[in-house]
């Protein structure tokens, strides 16, 4: 029977959670890199035992760890993330210019073709690529040096590049998202980038038609429908049917459309999941009830999923990289909370159970299906 491996990054280390295909009984391995912040761990699609982890701390900076045995052993690889050329300025919170400064890697996205090729999303926002298994990193500077770069401004979490989505067949196309600049698309394998934010509406910026400045929290795509993108923005759940050319709101009947993660079911490209959070000033679920909302219609019509989730006195958050789906049948879905719980559902969200309850605050969750 095939199994599932969850790669969980937390404020104080990495955890690897494994189960067989029934997804009822979980084995917890970790903490790996105890005491360090693990923003993200991700596996190579072409070799699930090849993992990359972003390890950082306020004291000792950024490291990248690599595993070739599914997370049993790790090796530190390259951590030289140098911006290409003149770094220039972006806007600081107060609107003054601020030089670009590397802080950490938020997200690692291995290539769909080659386990030695991996992309990294940085704060301050930039995208890097390694072609040698993480030993060396080169910036794709066309993004950061886009004409709008001097107008990018950090969100509350920093000027972070947090989402990297590769087109499943067109190797020249990729999407990235930056808080609080927005979504960018490349059609030439990362040489040049275009903002793709038309239709977003953000009360936090004065010009609603601005090409940048939107606080995009997360975007998601189903590989069978690569022109359809879903977005959890700071406020608003959005959808694009033309590869980011334009966006329209699909928040519909959600109790609140603020939140961080968004995910698409592995086998149903119109089934999407969000976790509504009360507001940007409170950062916890409405009414103390932890509810995942599912739309089977690609947005607008949503249903709360509550079975097995705490429905009283729950005030955790679910961060943008902390939700993932598996590709088993029926499809599984998982998320981690700032309270250290990881919840899983083996039936597409109908029922949930804790996988583990008392980890450090969860920053990221990825799901792998094992042979």
């Amino acid at each position: 029977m095939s199994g599932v491996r969850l790669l969980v990054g937390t404020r104080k280390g990495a955890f690897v959670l494994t189960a067989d295909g029934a997804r009822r009984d979980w084995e917890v391995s970790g903490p790996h890199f105890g005491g360090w912040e693990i923003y993200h761990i991700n596996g190579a699609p072409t070799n699930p035992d090849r993992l990359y982890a972003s390890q950082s701390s306020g004291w000792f900076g950024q490291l990248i760890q690599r595993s070739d045995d599914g997370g049993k052993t790790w090796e530190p690889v390259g951590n030289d993330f140098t911006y290409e050329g003149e770094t220039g300025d972006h806007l600081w919170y107060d609107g003054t210019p601020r030089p670009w400064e590397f802080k950490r890697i938020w997200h690692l996205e291995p290539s769909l073709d080659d386990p030695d090729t991996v992309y990294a999303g940085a704060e301050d926002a930039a995208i890097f690529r390694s072609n040698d298994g993480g030993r060396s990193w080169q910036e794709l500077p066309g993004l950061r040096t886009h004409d709008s770069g001097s107008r990018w401004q950090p969100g509350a979490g920093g000027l972070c590049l947090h989402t990297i989505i590769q087109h499943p067949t067109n190797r020249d196309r990729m999407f990235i998202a930056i808080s609080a600049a927005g979504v960018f698309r490349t059609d030439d394998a990362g040489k040049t980038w275009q903002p793709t934010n038309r239709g977003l509406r953000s009360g936090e910026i004065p010009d609603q038609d601005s090409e940048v400045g939107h606080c995009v929290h997360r975007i998601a795509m189903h590989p069978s429908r690569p022109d359809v993108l879903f977005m959890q923005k700071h406020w608003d759940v959005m959808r694009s049917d033309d590869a980011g050319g334009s966006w329209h709101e699909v928040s519909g009947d959600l109790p609140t459309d603020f939140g961080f993660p968004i995910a698409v079911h592995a086998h149903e490209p119109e089934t999407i999941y969000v976790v509504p959070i009360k507001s940007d000033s409170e950062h916890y679920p409405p009414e103390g009830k932890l509810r995942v909302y599912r739309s089977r219609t690609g947005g607008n019509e949503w249903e709360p999923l509550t079975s097995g989730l705490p429905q009283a006195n729950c005030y955790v958050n679910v961060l943008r990289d902390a939700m993932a789906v598996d590709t088993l049948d029926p499809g599984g879905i998982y998320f981690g909370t700032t309270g250290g719980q990881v919840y899983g559902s083996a039936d597409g969200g109908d029922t949930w159970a804790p996988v583990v309850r008392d980890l450090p605050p969860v920053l990221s969750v990825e799901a792998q299906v094992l042979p």
Partner: protein
Amino acid sequence: MIRVVLPAHLKNLARVGSEVQLEVAGQVTQRAVLDALETRYPMLRGTIRDRQTGQRRAFVRFYACEEDLSNEPPDAPLPERVVAGEEAFLVVGAMAGG
């Protein structure tokens, strides 16, 4: 032989015990010791000194002989007792954060 003591996280990262012993050619300065340390343990690059600027990271301190040497010029000679191997050069994670 120069003796260097690392903070716990960096000992784990470099997979070393309580103390590292280094041969340092030429004048024994903060820069020379850290260069030798990073040559022997390349995984420590960027963890003590910033990768881009080469400056000491803000929450890292250097102590020796009961003195805080953190803000000494990197090319200043280290104390004689460190050069003689009688005292260790301490790399310390500052008390900050959570």
